[in-house]
């Protein structure tokens, strides 16, 4: 509980920082912090494998890419100003606040509903089937088994997705087409 509280507070603070910092780099660093906190929360939920992935893939790979791009672009100072249109700013804030409140209430309320249901039914059956603990279902083996047995199809689709992303990124940054840009744009 204490760990949850600490991680939750840090992550909320860092998330706010991500969207309010004027420097993209600072935002990125805070985002990494958020991700690490979430990884910590995964650990408290027992999902160790996914916690590791969170740090490696998200905080590691993706964010490094983002930071790399930020460095590459070497943005000028005026790029970091974010509030140009007042009306838009308030509208955005109102909309986000609405979603936030709604999300918190709806999820909080709905969750409360079903925590009242006793767990005895399923626990009895679980015991009668001879399973002592369901924690082992959180292990990497279990995840792998599910992924390759039950979710084989989405897994294959993911491979296409990655290939698509590669082709897409290639097209967007293709040199041959870039050279023509100098000739003038329409």
């Amino acid at each position, binding site marked *: *509980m204490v760990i*949850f509280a600490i991680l939750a507070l840090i*992550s*909320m603070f860092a*998330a*706010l920082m991500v*969207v309010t*910092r004027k420097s*993209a780099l600072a935002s990125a660093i805070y*985002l990494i912090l*958020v991700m690490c906190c979430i990884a910590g*929360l995964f650990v*408290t*939920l027992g*999902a160790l494998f996914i916690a590791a992935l*969170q740090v490696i893939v*998200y905080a590691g*790979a*993706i964010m490094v*890419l*983002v930071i790399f*791009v930020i460095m*590459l*672009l070497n943005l*000028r100072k*005026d*790029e970091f100003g*974010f*509030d*140009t249109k007042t009306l*838009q700013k308030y*509208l*955005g804030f109102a*909309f*986000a606040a609405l979603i*936030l409140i709604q999300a*918190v209430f709806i999820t*909080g309320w709905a969750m409360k509903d*079903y925590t009242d249901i*006793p*767990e005895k039914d*399923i*626990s009895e*059956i*679980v015991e009668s*089937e001879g*399973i002592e603990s369901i924690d082992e*279902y*959180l292990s990497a083996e*279990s*995840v792998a088994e*599910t992924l390759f047995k*039950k979710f084989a199809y*989405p*897994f294959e689709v*993911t491979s296409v*997705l990655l290939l698509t*992303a590669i082709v897409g990124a290639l097209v*967007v940054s293709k040199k041959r087409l870039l050279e023509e*840009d100098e000739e003038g744009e329409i």
Partner: protein
Amino acid sequence: MAPVEYYIILSAILFGIGVWGVLKSRNAIVIFMSIELMLNAVNLSIVAFASNIKTVLSQFITAIPPQRIPEVLQTSIASGQVFVLLVMTVAAAEAAVGLAIIISIFRAKDSVNVDNVNIMKW
């Protein structure tokens, strides 16, 4: 372990902050990071829900044949993590294309401020 609904509420807050970030930021990269924040919030709620699966399934206990219970339990719990895994892949794919697009815009306009990139009315 803290009650599951705390996790859900935390994830809702993070998601809301992400939405706010997308709507208010003018910097393309910050918008991009806000979207990543939203995805992370979703991941958190999925894992939290998965850890709560026993409670959820007890509601439907009569709908599932008893001999399928262990299998369903395993699938449900693990599928939460599989879900997160797949979301990460999607995030990576989006990052690749999205950052490429941002760079491409930057080369043309020397700016990543979305207000500067506005020939057409938004």
